[in-house]
């Protein structure tokens, strides 16, 4: 295992992949045997011999997942999911929200579920026998010596959401908490702010460490219920925040908005990014302050021939990251010690 190093058998591992064209999380919970879980999927390529990154990782470790979750129907989370279902249909339990889209009020949610790649993933899961499916509105399942609990949505909240006509798929995405020996890990999916307020388990969220930052660090997803509060709990600063960027508009994480990375860095000392989502000059990696990151981005802008002023000030050019370089691995011990390392594109962002 050269790419990710050796996995310590008595530690819980969270491996965050992306962006290639999406985001995926692979979790290993110690046990006899250890439990493996895949949350969402991404493709490294859509042409020819497409590579499904989490499948590569599982092959890498010779592992088979006990649980596979699709948090919501967006292509950057669903690409390649059908391949995972096909491979492990006889072994794993597959979780997603089992929605009858015809009863969903929101056109955006309906359309997302019908988009080609998301539809392929949902179609594959929907054909599994009920014993292999987990309808993700509440509930807990064992994983290794730990458990996986659906934090959002609850059945009650889901009923309300399905009647809302203006919401997007992120509002019905499935956030889960992995618990093991008194430690807990939050995988925040793409869940946006209004929903964090609806969680009955909110008091448990701010102790989760590490956290897969919801919705790629968007300002709209930031909430102290999961980010915690450094003032009331100084120990909050040490929590590990793991994040994959989003290489589209709105380019995420948000490095300018007060509720984006800046807001998160008010509560914790560092945010770990698998990579940055724009061209920087010089290339951004290692440890950077958010100010340095902004400067590098702005420098990249000035390297381009400027647009006529009437066309406004553009963002920095976008860049597609090679998923082989873009990963983070957090290893959590039972004593609470958590070590994070990453691939070549890894950036550790500080205030």
């Amino acid at each position, binding site marked *: 295992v050269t790419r990710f190093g050796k996995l310590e058998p008595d530690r819980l591992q969270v491996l965050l992949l992306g962006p290639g064209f999406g985001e995926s999380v692979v979790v290993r919970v110690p046990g006899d045997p250890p439990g493996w879980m895949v949350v969402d999927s991404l493709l490294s390529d*859509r*042409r*020819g011999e497409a590579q499904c990154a989490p499948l590569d990782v599982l092959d890498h470790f010779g592992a088979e997942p006990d649980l596979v979750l699709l948090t919501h129907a967006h292509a950057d989370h669903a690409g390649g999911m059908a391949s995972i279902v096909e491979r492990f249909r006889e072994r794993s339990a597959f979780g997603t929200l089992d929605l009858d889209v015809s009863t969903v009020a929101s056109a955006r949610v309906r359309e997302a579920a019908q988009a080609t790649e998301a539809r392929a993933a949902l*179609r594959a899961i*929907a054909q599994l026998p009920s014993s292999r499916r987990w309808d993700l509105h509440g509930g807990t399942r064992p994983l290794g010596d730990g458990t996986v609990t659906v934090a959002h949505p609850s059945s009650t909240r889901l009923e309300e959401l399905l009647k809302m006509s203006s919401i997007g798929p992120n509002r019905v995405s499935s956030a889960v908490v992995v618990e093991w020996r008194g430690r807990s890990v939050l995988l925040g999916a793409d869940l946006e702010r209004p929903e964090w307020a609806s969680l009955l388990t909110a008091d448990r969220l701010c102790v989760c460490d590490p956290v897969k930052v919801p919705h790629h660090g968007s300002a709209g997803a930031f909430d102290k219920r999961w980010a915690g509060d450094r003032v009331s709990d100084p120990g909050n600063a040490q929590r590990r925040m793991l994040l994959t960027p989003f290489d589209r508009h709105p380019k995420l994480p948000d490095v300018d908005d007060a509720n984006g990375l800046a807001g998160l860095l008010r509560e914790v000392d560092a945010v770990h990014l698998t990579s940055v989502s724009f061209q920087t000059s010089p290339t951004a990696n290692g440890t950077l302050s958010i100010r340095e990151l902004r400067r590098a981005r702005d420098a990249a802008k000035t390297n381009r021939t400027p647009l006529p002023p009437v*066309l406004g000030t553009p963002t920095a050019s*976008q860049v597609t990251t090679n998923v082989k370089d873009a990963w983070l691995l957090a290893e959590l011990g039972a004593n609470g010690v958590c070590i994070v390392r990453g691939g070549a594109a890894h950036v550790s962002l500080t205030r």
Partner: protein
Amino acid sequence: MTALLAEVETGGERLAESLSSSHPKPTTVVGPAGTGKSAALRHARRCIGGHTVLLEATDDNLAPVALLDGLVAGLVALGHRLPATDDADSDAWDDRVRRCEGVFRDLAGEELVVLLSGVERLERLASGGGAPGRHAGDLMSLLQRNVPRLGVSRTAGGSSTEGTVAIERHDLGHWLVDDEAWGALAPAASAVAGRGVAWRRLPALTLRLLVALADLGALPDVPPSTPLETGRMLAVEMATRRATRPTWAAWQLVAGLRGQLDDSALDVLLSDLPAGVRDEELLTRCLLFRHDGWRMHPSLREVVRNPPSAVGRLMLPPDFLREAGRRTFEHFHKEALRLRADGDPRAAAAARAAALDACAMAGDDALVERVDEELPDPYDHVGSRVASEPNRSRLAYEHACLVDEDDATALRGLADAEDGEGIDAAKVERLLRHVVALEPRDVGSHVRLVGVLLAAGRPHAAGEAFDDALRGLSGVLEEEELARRLCVPVVRVAVVAGDLPLASRAAVAARGALGVEEAQELNRLVEGLVETLEYGEFVTDDRLGTRWWMAPELLSDFDVEHRPLSRWLAARVDTVEDEAATIHYADILLPAVPDQRPERAWTTLALADLRRMSLDELPDPLPGTILEVGVYGDGAQRGSTIVRVVRGEPVRLPEPGLSLDRYVRKAA
């Protein structure tokens, strides 16, 4: 006993009495066609009561299947449960036969009467080979082993008793002395009858052949032991006499066709032979018998297939047979088309089968292909006739598969019926894999298999199925045909199923066939979808997937001040808020580089500026609008910025023949 049925009910009662007496004997009913033998059996059944199963064979390849079904249903109706077998993977036919056998074993010592009508049809099938022959043989064997009292109904005299059931020999003297039955051969028939009761109890077929031998003055002193031996003796006599050689030729020609011949078909078949042969009584009264047309007993066909050495050099020349085959093919081909048009599928199927026999006689593969093209297979017909009723359709194909488990047409039809219902994707996959194993060149089934696997949520298996098909068919099909028939449909279904990697591979495979416009268009569609997902959408649908950044569609090369276009943005309006539009754009500095995608970025500009720069009216709503933003000169003091609104027709995704969600609905 012998029941020549002047009165059906009397015959039935006598049969019932015989079967239900304290010392019952194996019993048979004989008589010419149309005299009510089956009706007598039905009456006998009513007389005997509840422990009787009556089976009536039809005249087609499905007869054994139908009879076994009837036997099972009869046994169940009598309260006998079929035991389960422990071999779930066994052949379905064998399994049912074994289960019936189990019931019979349980019944040992109990009263059970099985009345079987039309045993000669089973015999004909059994001698015909193939799966129908095997099934017919299995069924006969099952009954003979287990049913000591089997009522056998025979049609016209002439059926062999060998290998069926032990039946009493009947004194057919009254038949032999019936002048009306023998016409000009009456003296010969009387001569045979005069040889004594042992001769008169010979099988009817043997008697007919002996009458012919008597007519030729060649009646042997001792009767031959089997009809086949008698037939071989007659063949030698006929072939070696100049006068009867045309009848021997007619014998050979009729033996080439199975099933019945009507008068017109017989005329066509024999039209190259001397006039008068058609009406020769040796032919019509001894070699053939009438039952729904003219028929020849399989034993006589066997004589032609394996002729005695003495007639080896007196066989018809191959060219003669070929010509007769071609002529007869045309007759039956026309008949089959007519009957199909008249809505008589059963007769059409029989005519088609005769046409195929004629093809074999003609030794012409091209004729077989013509049959395949112009006349659908009877199994297809069975399926299509009931296509609107899926359960019946599936049942028909299941029966056909029982008859011949390697019948690709039936398997295809069954797969089609099952796939349309969308219940068990794994079963459809098994059926289609069987089809492509039997017929590797069946491109449609390869495509169908890929589609089923995609619908079943198995992209990897679908990719492998496509690769297998591509490997198997490369070199077999022309490149263009391969693209048109395999790759293009796979691209189509893969796009709709959201499997873009497979669509991309299939499109690349089709790319070599440059003549296929559809393949190129689908290839572009795939590239466009991939581009949209991975890169963004900056141009109209019809330009996605091309090197659109090489030149704008609407912007001119110079502005009104003759300043050259130095840079352009391919842009899409994402949102409009507070009188400002956010646009997502690809930034192209000219000259563009073909293999280098432009960089992408976002910017926000005032709506008022956008309206001022635009040469076209901005649509409402604006989000989603594709723009070309041209920078001429330096775009500022010594230049200008011009916006064009690009309107394109949306490209529709291909329509799948069947919903990709058909298995999801059932699973739900």
